[in-house]
């Protein structure tokens, strides 16, 4: 069960009767939230390029992400909460990647796995390559490598886990009021029209928001 809350906060909480002390734990909502989140991070079953194979290897028996409560890869973005961008993001794929990201329910996290997802990697100069997925969507953890080894991916996931400890339920986007418009999807014109890059020059068309 949840770990004991800090001694400082216990003093302000009601006394627990002695007969219940072995079965009741007191904690904060934030900690319960972090605990649950860490142990049920469901990645999206999403493969872009070579790095996807290392992700599959990470999920398979030798490296086994089931140890972290994340063996269930979900094909539908609606059921996932972690997007591992594992490969080269091409311009042709960019609008769809943003759409998939928008479809993931909050709270959602993004790991950029491999050189390609970070910066375009070996294919950076390519005319159809987006030089880094963070040009499109916000990224929480970057894992260098081409491809990163499964151990590195696990390390990246644990890094993300560690972040949950510092998250407060108050700051999480999912619990904020107001409509979440999502990220405007880029469009394909004579080249990629990424409204974020073009900002300042031109505003995105309103209904695209």
């Amino acid at each position, binding site marked *: 069960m949840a770990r004991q809350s800090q001694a400082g906060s216990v003093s302000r909480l009601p006394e627990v009767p002695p007969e219940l002390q072995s079965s009741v734990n007191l904690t904060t909502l934030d900690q319960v939230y972090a605990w649950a989140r860490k142990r049920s991070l469901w990645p999206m079953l999403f*493969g872009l390029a070579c790095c996807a194979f290392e992700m599959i290897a990470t999920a398979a028996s030798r490296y086994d992400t089931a140890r972290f409560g994340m063996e269930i890869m979900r094909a539908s973005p609606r059921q996932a909460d972690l997007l591992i961008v594992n490969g080269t993001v091409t311009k042709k794929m960019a609008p769809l990647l943003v759409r998939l990201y928008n479809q993931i329910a909050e709270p959602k996290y993004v790991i950029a796995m491999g050189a390609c997802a970070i910066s375009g990697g070996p294919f950076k*100069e390519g005319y159809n*390559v987006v030089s880094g997925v963070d040009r499109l969507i916000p990224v929480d953890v970057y894992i260098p490598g081409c491809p990163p080894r499964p151990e590195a991916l696990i390390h990246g996931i644990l890094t993300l886990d560690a972040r949950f400890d510092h998250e407060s339920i108050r700051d999480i986007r999912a619990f904020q009021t107001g409509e979440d418009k999502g990220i405007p999807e880029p469009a394909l014109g004579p080249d990629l*029209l990424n409204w974020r890059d073009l900002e300042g020059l031109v505003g995105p068309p309103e209904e695209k928001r």
Partner: protein
Amino acid sequence: MADTINGMPVEVWEKLQARFPGALHPAQPPERGDAEGYPQGGEHRMTRSVSRSVLQNRPRYEGVLVHSRHLLDVMRFLRDELGYVMLSSLTAVDYPEAVGQLPPHIDVVYHLFRLEGGGYVVLHVHTAREGAILPSLTPEFAAANLQEREVWDMFGVRFDGHPDLRRLLMWEGFDGFPLRKDWREAYFEEEHKPFRSRFPEGGSPLYAEERTPYHANVRYSREFAEHNLHVDEDFSEADALLYERMLSADRDTDKPLKTEEMILNMGPHHPSTHGVFRMAVRLDGETVRHLEPVFGYLHRCHEKIGERNTWLQNIPYTDRLDYINGMTNNLAYCLAMEKLLGWEVPERAEYIRVIMAELSRVVNHVLAAGFFSNEIGMYFTGSLYALEERELVLDLFEAAAGGRMMFNYMRPGGIARDLPEGWIERARALVRGRLPKKVKQMQSFLLDNEIVRARSVNVGMLSAHDAIASGVSGPVLRACGVRYDIRRAEPYGIYDRFAFDVVTREHGDAFDRVALRFDEVWESLRILEQALDAIPEGPIQSHRLSPKMLIPPGETYARIEAPKGELGFYLVSDGGANPYRYHIRATSLLNLTPLSALTRGVKIADVVSILGSIDLTMGEVDR
């Protein structure tokens, strides 16, 4: 091999001359061009003007130059009377400046093969760069379909009579034809690597990323940037042509029952396509009326980048093509370079190459079977068996090459590193002890399983004739009963020394394709046993390599039997430190040519079964 002229059998040349007097010219005038004595592996960097003059003589060009007027006739003649039934590769080379007496032109290159082996025939057809147009082969040669679309997409050569000339890799509306030599990307820095700004000390402030407007990897024409960027237009027109095509293609107008049809997009994010592949399907209830594959979601501009890289810089890039089989990709590219260089490979390196290639085949085939079981709904169970074995082979690869997936292991003239101590024994233990047991187990779990049979027997039947005509190769071709394996038809390396059978099956359905892969695993294990026993000691590299090695001018096409089928590299060198043209004949792409036909009229659930049995890697399909 028999006598050859310009790379093709003399007898073929004579027959062609007799049949088409005066219409054909050798691509390389025999009296000109002498590549002997060319500096090899030198350190100096050729200036542009020198390489240009070398190009003018077109030394060591292969095949015949055909006028576009005669193209179809020559192709028919070669196919029907001389047996060149396989249109393996179709690509183009752009010459933006005059070459000798030739004006600026685009050279479209066709490589044809016979089932019996014995060399290839190369046809060159020239077309002007402005308004480039050639007759399409697609109505008669199905294998040309996707390849012509690619040439249109990348070079802007129109193919007159092509039933569906849309862009293949980029989207409709993309500006320009990227593989033309004068087309430059947003991050264009200079013509060739290594870039001055970064090599040897770097420090130049001229990084392309910073000079680009918007600092993104995008480039717009001036008019577009000035007038249209702010216009609230719907740019999602990119798919309009696709849907138009889908709705018009093979309509069945006299159906007894009026039913409403719908278009469903499977992918690019779809669990069955293991990668970003999209199939737009027109459905009538659950029945597929028409299926159009959409490519390019992983188009990483491999060829354009490859033409800027130095020759050796491309080796790690080939790892990332079919990323399950880095070893065989390395091998094919190195063979092509060796062909241009005329280099020999030491014995030990040859053996190591065979061992690596066959281990790779084993991994590929068990993985393909594992993922096939994924596709038909055994969620991940089958693949877990396969991935377990894969890890063990990857350990061997890692010990030899240093990486799990990306090896960068082979070099022209040999391999990069020798095997570490004890490697052979470890490999032998795996090949003799564990793999046969495990493969047998997987085979019986999968192939004797009733559900697997129900989902794959008689599903997606491909006839031998259609398979050959549409450029299919590898296990998919052999599952239709065609006994064709490049390791036997045109042995490369030392494959002629090993005893193994070219296995086939008859029906050409999804089940046979999966089952055949298991049969091939057994043959690969046979080769591995022989190779591991016979491997000699000795050197592993025949030449000293320099990072900016030069390759004498000429063109070549080298191919191997990769696990998925024929993997070919078409290289043109102008004598410089970089390939002038670097084209990959992608197995997975060509194997998808018959997909539309295979899926017509099947239930939607069978589409994934068919796709899974073809076994593709998107990195190679889109490049």
